[in-house]
């Protein structure tokens, strides 16, 4: 099965700083991969490279069959990025925000209202200004913007941060639903226990490089059986 993500010795810069100094990563369709590592290891940068927002300067990078950085525009159409700082406009209501970004991504009106309901913002929260929402509710709004896009590759940067338990279950449910519909997920998180329970595989990032770790890749490559705790590296 042709991997959704195929990175070999990928290097990417943040300004002049080589945030990614050499990444090897393969992700297969339908997988949920967790990026683990200390702050500043380059998790956020890696997600933005996968989204086609940061051009890799060395090494190989192919996402959803598109070669980066040349076909970045094509990649951007098919991914959804939930960044640490959401793309929400404080003065507008949750509904305004999701509608704007939904239409900006050519989503249908039905998808937009469905997304709002799915994240629990359909009711009275719909018309409250984002500035008055809690962080948890804001992330739901950002999540709704992502849902409306129907992305094939979900890129989530610290999705669990600031969510109450109810919202976390909601997120996990949505992830599994998307994966069943053929989507693939790459997320970074600090809540390791919860995230690991959710993900099929964990890739550790240290100082911008993926580390060589114990579990042989072949075992996890083929079978789709989600391995709950195994820490493995993909060759």
């Amino acid at each position, binding site marked *: 099965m042709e991997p959704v993500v195929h990175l070999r010795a990928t*290097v990417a*810069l943040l*300004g*002049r*700083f*080589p945030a990614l*100094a*050499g990444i090897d990563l393969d992700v297969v369709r339908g997988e949920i991969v967790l990026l683990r590592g200390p702050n500043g290891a380059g998790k956020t940068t890696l997600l933005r490279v996968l989204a086609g927002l940061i051009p890799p300067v060395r090494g190989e990078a192919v996402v959803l069959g598109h070669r980066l950085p040349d076909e970045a525009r094509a990649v951007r159409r098919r991914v959804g990025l939930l960044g640490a700082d959401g793309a929400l406009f404080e003065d507008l209501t949750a509904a305004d925000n999701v509608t704007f970004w939904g239409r900006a991504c050519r989503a249908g009106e039905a998808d937009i209202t469905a997304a709002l309901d799915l994240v629990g913002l359909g009711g009275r929260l719909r018309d409250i200004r984002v500035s008055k929402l809690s962080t948890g509710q804001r992330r739901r709004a950002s999540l709704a913007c992502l849902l409306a896009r129907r992305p094939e590759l979900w890129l989530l940067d610290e999705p669990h941060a600031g969510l109450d338990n109810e919202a976390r279950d909601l997120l996990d449910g949505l992830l599994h639903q998307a994966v069943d519909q053929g989507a693939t997920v790459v997320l970074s998180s600090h809540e390791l226990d919860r995230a690991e329970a959710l993900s099929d595989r964990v890739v550790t990032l*240290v*100082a*911008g*490089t993926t*580390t*060589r770790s114990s579990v042989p890749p072949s075992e996890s490559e083929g079978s789709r059986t989600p391995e709950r705790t195994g820490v493995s590296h993909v060759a």
Partner: protein
Amino acid sequence: MTATTQPGAVAGTPQPRSGDTAGAPAGTGSRGTRIVGLLALASIALLVLYGLVISPADVEMDDAVRLMYVHVPSATYLYVGCFVTTLASGLWLWKRTAGWDALAEAGAEVGLVFAVITLGTGSLWGRPTWGTYWTWDARLTSTAVLTALLVGYLALRRLDLDPDARSARAAVLGLLLVPNVVIVNRSVEWWRSLHQDSTLTRIDPTIEGDMLVALMVGFLALGLVFSWLMIHRFRVAWLSQQVDRIDLDEALAERRAEAEAEVAR
């Protein structure tokens, strides 16, 4: 514009290829620049001779006319500098090769030097001739606005840290430089012609004989100086790009070493 006898149109090729690249000497000098440098010095000497000694004083404004031999050529090379920057920015946007970005930076900075000279000599010329340092005449005013544009452009270049984002933004600003200059000149020219026609041209002495020769030498001398400065400034810009790239390799090696150390721990 009088035909300048300046060697090698710098605008066309980013840099006259001179000397071998392997084992190039330290600094930005080379056989080519030494020749241009010597020619420049010789022509400056000739300019001093003609401008200050041989050419007669003007019937109307006496010796103040000698300022023109420096003021008019420097104004011309200011525009050449802006033209180089806009051309290089356009080519960078099209071809995205780093050489054009370096040339755009060189054009703007050398252009700014000539802008300051033009303003300085212009106002010094105004004082004896019309009694004030700053006559709102068309050429001087548009040079002042153009100087502000160049200062803004160079400020943008110095500020932005991320190399490729900086080149993209500087290229867009650089591309707009000449259109801005044309519009500013047109509007200022119109504006001033409402009140009195441009003071500079009206009393431009009908120059001929030694005066004309002095002006021509002025063009030659400042042309050589312009080319010399452009070549050196271009190489400095190129070197700073290389230094950035090398810093990147070192930072990359450090980053990997840091990773190894952490894994080993």
